[in-house]
């Protein structure tokens, strides 16, 4: 077999720098061959090695008394939730594949994150998704393209999740021009397992067989490397798709077969999914974690296409495959379980004690590389940072000076504009396409602050409940990445808190532009530090995450988008609290004060077209105290509904509270010292609207006073069919049906175009 010669050009095309190549020569004690070069290039890519981000990621808190498996140790972290049960969860991006083929890109994103979860031994029970697109309103080519992307991505997520039978219970979607041409698709999955079911991804026990299970290997996902193999097969790049096609049916079989196999812990030594860099990454990581070696024969790898080279097999990113290290003597058990599910289970090699990953074709060695060095001794870069020059100017914005005071009519119009802005409007068009209820544990469906699912005890105890929410305000992060990232943590925790849950841990997806640009790397570092500080304040360790860099379009980088997905725990069913008003005749409270900050707000952006100012202040101590206090009120059984204030401030929150059960509200903001537009739309943090029985108001007041938290009695829910807000001598009065129509029809109206 003739392989291309290793030339400087070939090395460069693999994205390997001069210094990195020298490092490779040191590690091997010789020049790499072509296959080995490919192996190094994927293992040392940003995607696998985090070479640009690692030093920053070390700043995240990762430990805590609930942490059973820490970030970075395995495919996903695991947290204790009591009753001998645990949750494993993680978020992952599929931004670039989704830009090219939205349906398959998003679908395989979901498939990939699901594999991370069941590799841990957990059954996936809930998915979230966090999405960003350019604007979908209007008739420009760009917005048509954005609508196509949104439509394809949602269909892809639905296709995979619905088919495999994991409910998609929530998420977030934001539209902003910075995502034109570079949509973000971040998929989150959460699984549950007993403590004794936790699986590890280590290859240990010399002589133990290595099994390959699942789909056959094809030339999927090789386009990035196609240049290099073109000489080999004379095929054009066209025939080498970068985008893989997902097969959720295959994954469902793989999931069931794996979980059935894991019921026999004595048979399984280690498990590793084949994600990015497939066979390369899985053989090297299992060997590295086990402090062992692995030897495999590529002739035994099930192949979908003929004539694949070792390079192609090792670098293929075919989906729905796993590597399983089996205890010697249990081979037949494994084969029979996979046969039951009509799946390939091929014994492709065995564990050694050489510390090396050795790849053979029959008896010929085609690659021989030290596992631990490849996995752990990759390059690490400390990138240059520089605060963006124009930032100070963007942050300077005096709202009251620059924006003339509006009248009630224009505030009322602004409320409609906000509710009808696709970023704030109802996401029903999206989540209606997701099966939200399969597995029958979804208690709070999309539309509430956080989704809540039930986890039944396997020991006959009471069920527990898990809340989860994914959040990030990219506009805040663009204007102050540190503060914006803190707010992402605070908001996702707040959403969990509103349902009655205690945040216990989180996973993050850091979506940024090109890290070689010092201004971008400054955003990255600021965001990580902000997130880390906030996670410490909430005592929510980061159990894992994902970094996606190089999110750019020709006009520049995306707004920094560090997405935070928070997971919360509730021990009592009675604590589960909806976000919308449940009945007429309840007292409406505003907890946390009137607020006043308008910088970077949705009002500025969606109504006035301005993206400036400083995002609201985030006092972590205050925020944590606020959330703890609201949770205490909920646990005392005093709260009928709780909804936090975020985009669009109080007015939008009140309207949202009215929609679900079509409950009216009459509130009085006359005591607010601020201008009417500020009173209605400011986004000061740490605030919520609660509905409570009127007899409880005094107790609540006392409780909040003792916690030094402001509480304002705003008004009362009613059956008027209207939301009316008194503002001094004037009042704003809107039909709920009309507001709801604006809120519900916004995205559907865009999408029929």
């Amino acid at each position, binding site marked *: 077999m003739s392989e291309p010669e290793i030339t400087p050009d070939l090395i460069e095309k693999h994205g390997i720098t001069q210094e990195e190549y020298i490092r490779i020569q040191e590690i091997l004690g010789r020049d790499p061959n072509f296959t080995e070069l490919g192996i190094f290039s994927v293992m040392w890519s940003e995607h696998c090695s985090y070479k640009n981000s690692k030093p920053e990621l070390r700043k995240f808190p990762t430990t805590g008394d609930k942490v059973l498996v820490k970030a970075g140790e395995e495919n996903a972290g695991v947290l204790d939730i009591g009753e001998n049960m645990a949750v494993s969860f993680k978020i992952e991006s599929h931004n670039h594949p989704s830009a090219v083929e939205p349906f398959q890109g998003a679908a395989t994103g979901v498939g990939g994150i699901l594999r991370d979860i069941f590799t841990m031994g957990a059954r996936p029970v809930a998915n979230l998704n966090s999405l960003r697109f350019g604007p979908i309103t209007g008739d420009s080519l760009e917005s048509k393209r954005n609508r196509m992307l949104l439509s394809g991505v949602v*269909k892809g997520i*639905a296709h995979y999740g*619905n*088919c*495999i*039978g994991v409910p998609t219970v929530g998420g977030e979607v934001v539209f902003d021009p910075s995502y034109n041409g570079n949509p973000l698709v971040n998929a989150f999955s959460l699984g549950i397992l007993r403590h004794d079911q936790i699986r590890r991804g280590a290859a240990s026990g010399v002589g133990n067989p290595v099994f390959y299970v699942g789909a056959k290997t094809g030339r999927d996902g090789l386009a990035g490397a196609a240049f290099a193999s073109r000489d080999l097969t004379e095929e054009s790049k066209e025939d080498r798709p970068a985008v893989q096609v997902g*097969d*959720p*049916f*295959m994954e*469902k*079989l793989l999931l069931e077969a794996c979980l059935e196999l894991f019921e026999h812990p004595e048979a399984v030594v280690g498990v590793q999914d084949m994600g990015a860099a497939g066979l390369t990454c899985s053989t090297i990581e299992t060997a590295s974690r086990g402090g062992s070696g692995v030897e495999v024969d590529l002739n035994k790898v099930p192949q979908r296409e003929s004539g694949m080279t070792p390079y192609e097999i090792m670098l293929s990113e075919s989906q729905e495959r796993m590597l399983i290290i089996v205890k010697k003597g249990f081979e037949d058990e494994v084969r029979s379980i996979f046969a039951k*599910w*009509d799946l390939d289970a091929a014994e492709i090699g065995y564990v050694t004690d050489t510390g090396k990953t050795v790849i053979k074709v029959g008896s010929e060695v085609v690659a021989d590389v030290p596992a631990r060095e490849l996995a752990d001794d990759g390059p690490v870069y400390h990138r240059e940072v520089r605060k963006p020059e124009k930032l100070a100017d963007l942050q300077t914005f005096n709202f009251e000076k620059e924006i003339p005071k509006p009248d009630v009519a224009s505030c009322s119009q602004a409320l409609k504009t906000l509710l009808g802005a696709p970023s704030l409007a109802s996401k029903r068009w999206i*989540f*209606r*396409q*997701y*099966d*939200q*209820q*399969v*597995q*029958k*544990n*979804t*208690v709070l*469906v999309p539309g509430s602050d956080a989704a809540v699912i*039930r986890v039944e005890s396997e020991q006959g105890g009471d069920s527990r409940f898990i809340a989860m929410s994914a959040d990030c305000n990219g506009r805040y992060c663009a204007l102050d990445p540190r503060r914006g990232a803190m707010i992402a943590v605070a908001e996702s925790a707040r959403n969990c808190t509103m349902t009655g849950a205690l945040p216990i841990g989180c996973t993050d997806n850091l979506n940024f532009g090109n890290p070689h640009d010092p201004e971008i790397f400054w955003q990255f570092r600021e965001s990580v530090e902000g997130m880390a500080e906030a996670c410490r304040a909430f005592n929510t360790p980061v159990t894992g995450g994902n970094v996606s860099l190089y999110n750019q379009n020709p006009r520049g980088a995306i707004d920094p988008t560090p997405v935070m997905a928070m997971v919360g725990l509730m021990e009592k*069913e009675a604590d589960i609290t909806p976000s919308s008003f449940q009945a007429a005749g309840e007292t409406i409270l505003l907890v946390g004060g009137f607020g006043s900050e308008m910088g970077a707000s949705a009002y500025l952006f969606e109504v006035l077209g301005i993206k400036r100012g400083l995002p609201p202040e985030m006092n972590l101590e205050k925020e944590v105290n606020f959330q703890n206090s609201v949770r205490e009120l909920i646990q005392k059984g005093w709260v009928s509904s709780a909804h936090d204030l975020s985009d669009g401030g109080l007015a939008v929150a009140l309207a949202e509270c009215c929609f679900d059960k079509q409950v009216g509200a009459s509130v009085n903001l006359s005591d607010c010292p601020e201008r009417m537009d500020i009173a209605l739309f400011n986004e000061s943090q740490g605030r919520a609207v609660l509905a409570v029985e009127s007899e409880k108001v005094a107790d609540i007041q006392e409780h909040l006073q003792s916690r030094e938290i402001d509480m304002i009695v705003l008004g009362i829910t009613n059956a008027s069919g209207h939301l009316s807000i008194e503002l001094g001598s004037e009042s704003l009065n809107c039909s709920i049906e009309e507001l709801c129509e604006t809120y519900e029809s916004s995205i559907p109206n865009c999408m029929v175009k």
Partner: protein
Amino acid sequence: MKFAVLQFPGSNCDQDFLRAVRDVLGSPARMVWHKETEIDPEETVLVPGGFSYGDYLRCGAIAQFSPVMNAVKVAAERGQTILGVCNGFQILCESGLLPGALVRNRDLHFICETIHLRIDNSRTRLTHELKDGDVLRIPIAHGEGNYRVDLETLQDMEAHGQIVFRYVDHDGKDSDSANPNGSLSNIAGICNRSGNVFGMMPHPERAVEDLLGSSDGLKLLKSLLSYA
């Protein structure tokens, strides 16, 4: 009476159905793997939702040839009760046990939401604990639930009380806006001429606990139980 819940590769409501009839209804129940070839004469067969064989080609097209479907046909001929829900409904249509076919939803989207369902024939094994015109709240979750049948067959089905459920608004009217998927005549569920094979798109097994939004589905499952 026992419940037998079929399990095809790609079924994903099989466990949900089992939990509904075994844990909530408290009836004996077992899973039946698609390669099995026997169904007991006293069993009521539940064909669950999901994406059997990935729903490739057409929903239910490949599953109709699973070995267990021969046993289901025998059971149907013996007069045993068979209920297909969602993908189960599609499989029963594909295998010819029920008339008609289910095609892509009118708006081409998968739709998951809780809808209102009217009982249009309360004299069946599945509905005898309810009254004609009763309205239930039950979730749907499907991409291909648009029921199609030729007009002649439809009239025949009407005449024989085979239209068991229709999509309605909350007042019980079968308006076009209450039709989530474009089904002919708002049809949500049917039975065969002998009244022992049922198919419906809504998921009664998902509506068995108030905590999860509705327990109306229980009324249907209880009917099955008390018929036997």
